[in-house]
């Protein structure tokens, strides 16, 4: 059963349109990430769900009721803010107890609930401290505690890990996934960090320019990006995207640019000969042998592999992953082969749709 439904949500701030008819159905207990660059509308979506912003048009349902006119506190949601938004003058215990207090839950019950939340988040030792006496990670756990003590139907998390250092962030990622598994509640998580979205989510909603670009499990988003934007946005280093044209000859598609010509995997019915883009991930570029000849430009060593950027005829730059043992030096000539079975074809334009035949059918 769908737990959270956004139907045709439009949100304008003056002359700026932040969301242009967003449709999203989130299942009960799902962990969904809203992922996209700054200004894509992901935070606006979350704030509309929370009731902190009102949509210009469209309906929002949580559970089985429309909540457009329901106050934030009555929506059965809890939100964790990017800045944590802990009440600075209250102790950890008072912070966690605050939503319970506002719901007039008796003191005795409150204490038990706070204790339980504190145990779950390993905050028991810190209950009497003030937020400013806590580290970033601890403050973050208090913010989580304040959210989960209410046992809401839906958790809304607005880039909760962005203020933490890299090590703590990867630790908290695991903690959050574990928490989600234990609570079994719907969690909607806003992030601009694709690693967070990929590692934690059941499904990712990739957004750009106020539009939903793709809503699918992480693997699908990575292996079958719906359009050129998603293809370029997901994956580090980014997918190679080369502009050129599609040619159909004898039932087989070929992609051409300059003097480069590569076969393309079977395309769907929406494919047409003419301008298009070819996309292939760095891991599908083989260095050392192959038909394409160029020069190594930059080598980034990351220990377990080398990211190699090479330049080819017509100013074409291709990024690939090479094993750490393969040593490449800038300026050195190189030959590459593109694993075209894993390549994608996109229609022309920045958001051109993917033209490949769906994987199951291919």
């Amino acid at each position, binding site marked *: 059963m769908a737990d959270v439904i956004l139907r045709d949500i439009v949100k304008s701030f003056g002359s700026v349109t932040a969301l242009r008819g967003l449709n999203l159905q989130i299942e009960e207990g799902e962990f969904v990430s809203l992922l996209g660059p700054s200004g894509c509308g992901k935070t606006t979506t979350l704030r509309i769900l*929370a*009731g902190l912003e009102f949509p210009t048009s469209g309906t929002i349902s949580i559970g089985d009721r429309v909540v457009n006119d329901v106050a*934030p*506190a009555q929506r059965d949601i809890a939100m964790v803010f990017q800045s944590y*938004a802990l*009440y600075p003058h209250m102790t950890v215990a008072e912070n966690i107890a605050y*939503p319970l207090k506002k*719901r007039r839950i008796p003191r005795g019950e409150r204490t038990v609930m706070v204790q339980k939340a504190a145990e779950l988040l390993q905050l028991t030792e810190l209950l009497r401290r003030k937020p400013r006496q806590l580290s970033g990670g601890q403050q973050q756990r208090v913010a989580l505690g304040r959210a989960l003590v209410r046992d809401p139907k839906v958790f809304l998390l607005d880039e909760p890990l962005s203020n933490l250092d890299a090590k703590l962030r990867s630790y908290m990622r695991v903690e959050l996934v574990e928490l989600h598994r234990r609570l079994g509640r719907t969690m909607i998580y806003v992030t601009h960090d694709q690693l967070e979205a990929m590692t934690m989510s059941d499904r990712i909603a990739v957004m750009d320019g106020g539009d939903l670009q793709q809503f699918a499990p992480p693997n699908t988003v990575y292996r079958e990006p719906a359009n050129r934007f998603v293809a370029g946005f997901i994956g580090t280093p980014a997918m190679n995207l080369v502009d050129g044209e599609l040619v159909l000859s004898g039932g087989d598609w070929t992609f051409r640019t300059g003097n480069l010509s590569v076969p393309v995997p079977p395309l769907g019915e929406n494919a047409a000969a003419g301008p298009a883009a070819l996309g292939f991930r760095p891991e599908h570029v083989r260095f050392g042998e192959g038909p394409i000849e160029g020069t190594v430009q930059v080598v980034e060593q990351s220990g377990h592999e080398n990211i190699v950027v090479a330049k080819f005829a017509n100013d074409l730059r291709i990024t690939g992953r090479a094993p750490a043992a393969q040593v490449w030096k800038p300026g050195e000539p190189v030959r590459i082969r593109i694993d075209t079975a894993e390549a994608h074809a996109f229609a022309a334009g920045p958001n051109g749709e993917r033209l490949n035949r769906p994987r199951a059918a291919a």
Partner: protein
Amino acid sequence: MNPARRTRLEREYALLGAILIAPTVLIFCAVIVYPLVSAIYLSLFQVFTPTLEGSWVGLSNYRELLGKEEFWTSLLNNIIWTVGTLSLQIIFGVAMALILHQNMWFRSLARSLILFPYFVSTVVAVLVWKWLFNDLYGIMNHLLIVSGLTDFPIDYLGTMPNAMISVILVGAWKYFPFVVIAVLARLQTIPDALYEAARIDGAGPISRFFDVTVPQLREVLVVIIMLRAIWDFKEFDMIYLLTGGGPITSTQTLPLLVYKEAFKLNQMGMASTYAVAMMAIMLVFMILYIRRTRSEEDT
């Protein structure tokens, strides 16, 4: 570090530092330390103001002060004035700051206008208020009579408790903008996320005011109250110009008493004694203030 082992560069830096702070230290000594010491010194003499000639009396000025009714009356007046005007300044100041913090189209204009009483010179302000209060041609009496609230003009400055109330009101009017500015500055730094979190947690507007706004304002209010208490306590020109301490001594505060003793009764020694006593009382505020800021730093 052992001075003998200082390098030449370190010695040069130390010398440069001393040269740079020397002017400040000299000015500080000339305008603060000298008058302070000299006031304490004068309080031990009986001095005739016009000639500044005097004789050593030791602590007898202080003995006289403790037994003098006028001193205690003035101290009581001073406390009534300070508490009265300060409370009104805080109440109006905070209320006005909350109003000006809202999104209104005339907000920036209102924010500038609100500063007017604070900017206007005390003499001008007092003249204006004296016109307003005047029992023959003052607008306040005119309005009261026209509206039928009173049959006879009210004597705002010549009777008690009207005089004290008037002085307190004018003081509140003159100085509440300071509170507005300080509180407004603090209000603008309270993160919106706190209010949003409170809304999601189920706090209504009143809860949000008491659970988010008030605790956030506490720090700045402590500083405002301390500073304004010190400034109001030693207020001279406004009260002097408005009532001159009258009727008789009903609105005479300690600064007015010091002035009267020094320049009307020509007793500079006794005046200095009052001034030193006043300083001792204000020292209590200052110690509270310093202890307060220190305990803030500790936690």
